[in-house]
């Protein structure tokens, strides 16, 4: 590697780190600490509590435990990680996408780098929410048994974030700032197997099998029951990678569209 190559690599690295730093500051403005502490965390905790208790109400104690693990995944993805879609939407609202698509760093790298702090905060909040919810529900033992499999939850979070960015970027022109995250959230609630166990409704299984979370949750349940989990974890990772490629595709489509039509507001 020549000195020039090294300098170029260092410059790219520095730019990426700067994009991450920008994402951190952006997160602080979009989700002020007070709103995170008093709105997001209680929402996540109550979401876990709601699904866990509902599981007990509709199908008894076994479903309660099952729904607790599912509730964790739902809180992580549909409440915490979903915030990453603010990254493409911020560019829409502030009309800054043209600067990103004409810069040296590829647009998708900038978007993903800015999403990193959102993901990290989401995962940190998830740990806090899970601990509080477990204490409220008296399921501390179950929560401790989930701990070794947190890395699978991390894959679910990444897959959900990538798909969220892809969906938000693709639908950004259609007033989708509300639609994309919520539709994805409700599809996840319905089809991920977080509450409704797989094998109950065929069409729900079919949709869920191509979305993030479902295979990861199946892996966690299998692992906690002492069964084989590797295949499901691998499928979750595959969906995560496919979602990342979808994100890349979505950004390319919008960048080409913006170049062709000469605008970046997507309205």
């Amino acid at each position: 590697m020549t000195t020039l190559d090294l300098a170029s690599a260092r410059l790219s690295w520095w730019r990426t780190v700067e994009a991450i730093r920008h994402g951190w500051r952006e997160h602080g403005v979009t989700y002020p600490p007070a709103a995170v502490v008093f709105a997001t965390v209680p929402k996540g905790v109550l979401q876990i509590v709601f699904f866990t208790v509902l599981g007990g109400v509709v199908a008894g104690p076994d479903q309660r435990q099952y729904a607790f693990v599912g509730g964790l995944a739902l809180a992580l993805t549909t409440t915490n990680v979903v915030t990453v879609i603010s990254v493409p939407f911020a560019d829409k609202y502030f009309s800054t996408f043209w600067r990103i698509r004409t810069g040296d760093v590829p647009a998708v790298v900038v978007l993903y780098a800015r999403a990193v702090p959102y993901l990290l905060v989401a995962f940190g909040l998830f740990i806090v929410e899970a601990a509080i919810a477990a204490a409220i529900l008296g399921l501390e033992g179950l929560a401790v048994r989930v701990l070794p499999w947190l890395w699978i939850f991390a894959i679910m979070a990444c897959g959900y974030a990538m798909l969220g960015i892809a969906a938000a970027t693709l639908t950004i022109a259609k007033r989708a700032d509300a639609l994309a995250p919520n539709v994805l959230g409700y599809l996840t609630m319905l089809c991920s197997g977080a509450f409704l166990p797989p094998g109950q409704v065929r069409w729900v299984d079919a949709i869920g099998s191509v979305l993030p979370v479902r295979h990861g949750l199946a892996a966690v349940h299998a692992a906690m029951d002492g069964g084989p989990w590797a295949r499901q974890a691998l499928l979750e990772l595959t969906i995560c990678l496919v979602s990342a490629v979808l994100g890349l595709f979505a950004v390319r489509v919008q960048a080409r569209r913006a170049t062709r039509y000469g605008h970046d507001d997507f309205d």
Partner: protein
Amino acid sequence: MSDQRIAAPSSPDAGVRESLTPGDRVRSAAWTFLTAARTEQRAMQGNPLVLINGGFLPIALLVISVETRRPTSGRAAEIVVSVMLTALWACTIWTSGGVLRRERTYGTLASCVCGVASPTVILFGKSFGATLYGVGMTLATTLGTVLVLRLPVAVAQPFWIAVGLVIVVVSATTLGALMSCLFLLTRNGLIWSGALMYPVFVLGGLLLPPDVLPVWLRWAPQLLSLHWINEFLSGAIGGGLSFTPLSVAVLLTIVYGVLAWFTYRWSIDKARQRGTLDYA
């Protein structure tokens, strides 16, 4: 010339207002109310949040609640009513609960509260328009899902169910107006809107019956009119009709309305004093 044009409108308006009979005032308020409701209904037609919370949420909640373990006929009816009201709550937060937040976003809040027509009538009219749309969407989706899932739900008292639905609309209207005023007090209304969904899902006594709550929290569902309407509608569908829940729901609806009126006046006065009507 310009001074005259500035000064002129206030005195004739005041004169006109003084000359109005009580009947004229009621007619004028009714016209304002209906116009505000129609305007908001038109706005709702392009609002994806109605589709999400009135369209997707009932489907998701109903499918996961009844397909995990198939309920009996009576229990299915209870679940259907609870899901509908739970989805309506979510709808109310985002639609009628966001009326004033949207006005502020669009820069029309100042003209709403400084106009000739009563701002309170406009608020309730808009909240009514949004609620009516939300209730319609939620009801249609819930009934459609019941049919698709072939749930064994029989209706024992159709008339009282219709009465219950009217109370649902009125109650959700006042509840939405109240929340709308509260969201006006913060710049992070969207975040708070999302955060307010699950507290009522858990403590509202809808899908989760109050007896699963800790004893020290069992008072919470009593404060929510939707909980009492849930009891009333479940009774009307199942055949165990009781008017006590309906009366409590009506009473709570009145309380919400009065609270909304006071909160609105207070928050607008504060915003005008501080000169932050559009930045409250």
